Structures are given as structure tokens and as C-alpha cells.
């Protein structure tokens, strides 16, 4: 199982409601993944103030982060600590907080993860009061690795990039080995992390998001519906068999994707949206 929700706003007047809408969507896919959850939000002024570099961490506290990183401001959201600072934060975190796991970084994105009931987690994240222009969320039913905050989605391994996955990759160990041989570092044995690292690696090599996702379709075996976001785009792709569900709804005000219709039904204007199921192995990308 696993549940996916995502919302890409086109209408700026909806930005104050991003977190509230994302939380409502997440609440509709709890049964699909009751063991843990995570979200990524783009453009919240408290978590990612304009012009500041943002790093999301597991395994640290805000006090510890602020003490170790001069000039940094840290916020706690359930198991996650979100830190922002003027410059070079990612490198500074690696030096100053070596025991912490980086679960996201970028200029305008924060990643929040935890274990437990997704509705309670959303409250613990303070999600309803988050604002911004894009958000993705995931409720997890673990199959390939342990139920830990690190194992929760999204997987964010490149600047501003996020991947959420419903399904399971069959050949992830092979691809992990190949990427490791090319110098890519991994945090876990999780199959979805391999997908995220593969996309980040392709983007780093110069591919655009469409190409990276097409290459993923060629290289990965298994079941997947993926929602991939970056600081300027929102993309969906499904495997050839397409047994993991996906629905997209689109209006002039937003594009949304979810595992099930009930998560889209909470959105304003859904009754006049264009609703469709993404075709297998077709890459859909919406840009800001």
C-alpha cells in the first residue's frame, strides 16, 4: 500500500492554505500507510525563510543545532529538526553534527518525518499552519525496510528534490551497487532511497526531470507510482503495469496528485477539475 498526496499551487491566494489542504489530503490516505508519514513543503516563511539555506535533520535537537552552527535558527517538528542559515549550511552540518541524518536540503524546502499515526504526525508537524506553493506527503506501510523516521518518505537527497513512492523496486540492490561504484553515498538500505539517489544523480549529470524519470523507467524493475518534486516542478510517473494507484486533478488554481480520489475531494474547486489517471510509463511534469 502506502498513500501519496501532493499539491502544486498555481493560484497565489491559496498559498496561506497549503498546509491545511495538504493535512486534509494526508488524513484521507491514513489507512494506506498507518505506520509513519512525512511531508515536504516548499515556501513556508518560518521553515524556509527567503534567501536562507535550509537543512532538515533527524537525530538532533534545535538547541544542539543552534549551539553547533553559529547564525543558524532551528525549529523542531516531531522527530525532525529544521535548521536554516545564510550560507553553506549543508557542509557545516556535516562537520558540526556528524551524528545527525540529513533528510532534506535546499533553499525553499523543508522535509518533516516521523513514525506513528499520520494524522497525529501532521498535528505534531504543525502542518495545518504551514504556508507555501507546493507540498507532497506520504503515509507509509513499510515493506522493504524498518519503520523508522529515516525510512519514512519523502526521500530528499538533492537540493530541493523530493521523491515519494508507492510500491517496491525489485532491482534496487543492483542499482545501489552501481551508484555506489560511481561514488554515490546512501543513508539506508531502503529501496525508495535508491530511486531518489538515481534521479538526483541523473539531474546532477545534466538530465532534466523528464529525462531522469524516463531513465528511471528504463532501469528500475518493480512496482511504482512516484511523485517527484523539485524547487520548480511537480512530476508523476508510474511503472508499465500501473497497479499502484494514481489520480491527478487539475484546475487553473492547482495541480494535485493522490493515490485515491477521496484525498482530492477535500480540495477547493474539485467539482470543476479535470481528473485523470496517469498512463503507465508516461512522465507528467508541471512547472512553476
Amino acid at each position: 500500500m502506502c498513500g501519496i498526496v501532493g499539491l502544486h499551487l498555481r493560484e497565489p491566494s491559496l498559498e496561506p492554505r497549503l498546509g491545511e489542504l495538504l493535512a486534509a489530503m494526508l488524513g484521507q490516505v491514513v489507512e494506506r500507510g498507518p505506520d509513519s508519514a512525512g511531508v515536504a513543503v516548499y515556501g513556508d516563511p518560518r521553515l524556509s525563510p527567503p534567501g536562507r539555506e535550509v537543512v532538515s535533520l533527524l537525530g538532533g535537537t534545535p538547541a544542539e543545532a543552534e549551539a553547533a552552527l553559529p547564525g543558524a535558527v532551528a525549529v523542531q517538528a516531531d522527530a525532525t529538526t529544521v535548521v536554516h542559515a545564510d550560507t553553506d549550511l549543508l557542509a557545516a552540518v556535516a562537520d558540526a553534527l556528524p551524528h545527525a541524518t540529513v533528510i532534506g536540503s535546499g533553499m525553499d524546502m523543508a522535509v518533516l518525518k516521523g513514525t506513528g499515526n499520520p494524522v497525529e504526525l501532521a498535528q505534531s508537524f504543525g502542518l495545518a499552519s504551514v504556508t507555501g506553493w507546493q507540498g507532497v506527503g506520504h503515509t507509509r506501510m513499510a515493506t522493504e525496510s524498518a519503520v523508522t523516521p529515516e525510512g519514512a518518505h519523502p526521500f530528499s537527497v538533492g537540493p530541493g528534490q523530493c521523491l515519494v513512492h508507492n510500491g517496491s523496486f525489485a532491482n534496487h540492490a543492483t542499482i545501489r551497487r552501481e551508484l555506489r561504484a560511481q561514488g554515490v553515498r546512501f543513508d539506508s538500505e531502503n529501496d525508495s532511497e535508491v530511486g531518489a539517489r538515481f534521479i538526483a544523480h541523473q539531474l546532477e549529470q545534466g538530465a532534466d526531470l523528464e529525462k531522469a524519470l524516463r531513465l528511471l523507467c528504463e532501469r528500475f524493475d518493480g512496482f511504482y507510482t512516484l511523485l517527484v518534486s523539485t524547487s520548480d516542478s511537480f512530476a508523476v510517473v508510474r511503472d508499465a503495469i500501473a497497479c499502484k494507484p494514481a489520480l491527478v486533478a487539475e484546475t487553473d488554481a492547482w495541480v494535485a496528485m493522490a493515490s485515491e480520489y477521496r484525498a482530492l475531494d477535500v480540495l477547493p474547486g474539485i467539482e470543476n477539475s479535470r481528473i485523470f489517471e496517469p498512463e503507465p510509463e508516461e512522465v507528467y511534469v508541471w512547472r512553476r
Partner: protein
Amino acid sequence: MATLIDLVQTPVRELNQALHAPEATSWRILNPRGAHAVACGIREDLAVDIEGHVGYYCAGMNQRATVTVHGNAGTGVGENMMSGTVRVHGNASQSAGATARGGLLVIDGDASARCGISMKGVDIVVGGNVGHMSAFMGQAGRLVVCGDAGDALGDSLYEARIYVRGTVKSLGADCVEKEMWPEHLAELAELLKAAERDEDPADFRRYGSARELYHFKVDNTTVY
């Protein structure tokens, strides 16, 4: 006058319990909002109208009732239905009519992947297109597609019969086009009429099993 049930106020379980011991023959259900298992397991000759989009397994296991969805349906609409009529005015997600044994399932819009997977006697009429692997392992019944069919139509088919008016992207293993005989035109005309459609049976092509797969070979019957 239909008995009105608003799913904002009434849980689906209570609705289904009411439909299983019905005190009325006509029902109207409001605000399904993508809920799962709406109007499942009915055994009586009821008319149930659902106003909005439903989630998974709507009208599953239906017997005798006429269930109409005035919206889209999620995965597995009419799955394992035995008799009666299930009609979706919008589109249906994957596995519509999966394993269904009887009755008529009509989808006015498109049905996505695996429509009629493992169908065992149901008749399915789709006004639009069907997705890949439709009628996969279909054992009995008829699938009528007024639009186009996706990849691997009728893969590993047994005895189900398929009629397609538009194009077929590709045929699945052991599925072949077959000649339209008068008896096929006659049954297709009946199915289209039952589905209240006005397409001309002469515009359709027929597909079925070539019966060449392993399990059709008599020499293999004693292998295990």
C-alpha cells in the same frame, strides 16, 4: 420516493447494513466523496443511485440490484458481481468488473487498466476506452468496448468474448481476432441495447482465445 442517505452523516457500514436488510426499494446516496465499498453486497432487487464519485469496490458482489454511480468509480467497481446492473456514468479506475460472474456492468466513460480481469460470466459494456490488459484471463462473459483498447487486450483469455469498435493497441498472449458471425452480431446488438447505447454492431470486431497456451494442450493435463 427514494430513501435518502447522506454519507457525510451516515457511515458506509450503516448504509450497507441498511441495504442488506432493506426497508425500501429505491435509494439515493449523497456525498460519497470517494468512499470505499459503497453499496456492496446487495442481494435484493433495489434501485440505488449514488450522487458523486465513489472509491474502491463500489457495488461489489452485487446481486439483483441496479446500482447507478452518477460520477466516477475507483478500483474494482462491480467486482465479483453476480447479477443485476451496475452503471457508472463517468469513468472507472482499474479492475472494473474483476472476477464478476453475472449481471451487466456499464461504464459510460473510460475504464482504465485490467477492465474485466478474470471475468467469469459478467457482461461489461464500456462507452469509451479500456486500458491495458483488459479481460486478462477472462473465463466467460462478454466485454464490449465502444472506444479503443489498450495494450495486451485479452491476454491469456479462456472463453470470454471481446468486441471492440475502435482500435486495439496490441493483443495479449493467445488473443486473436475472430470472424463476426450472425450470432455474434445478434448478441452484440442485445448487449448494446441493454446498455442503452446506439452504436452499430457492424462497426465492431470480435476477439477471443486462440486456445494455444499450455493449459489448452491435452498432453499437459497429466503433467502434475
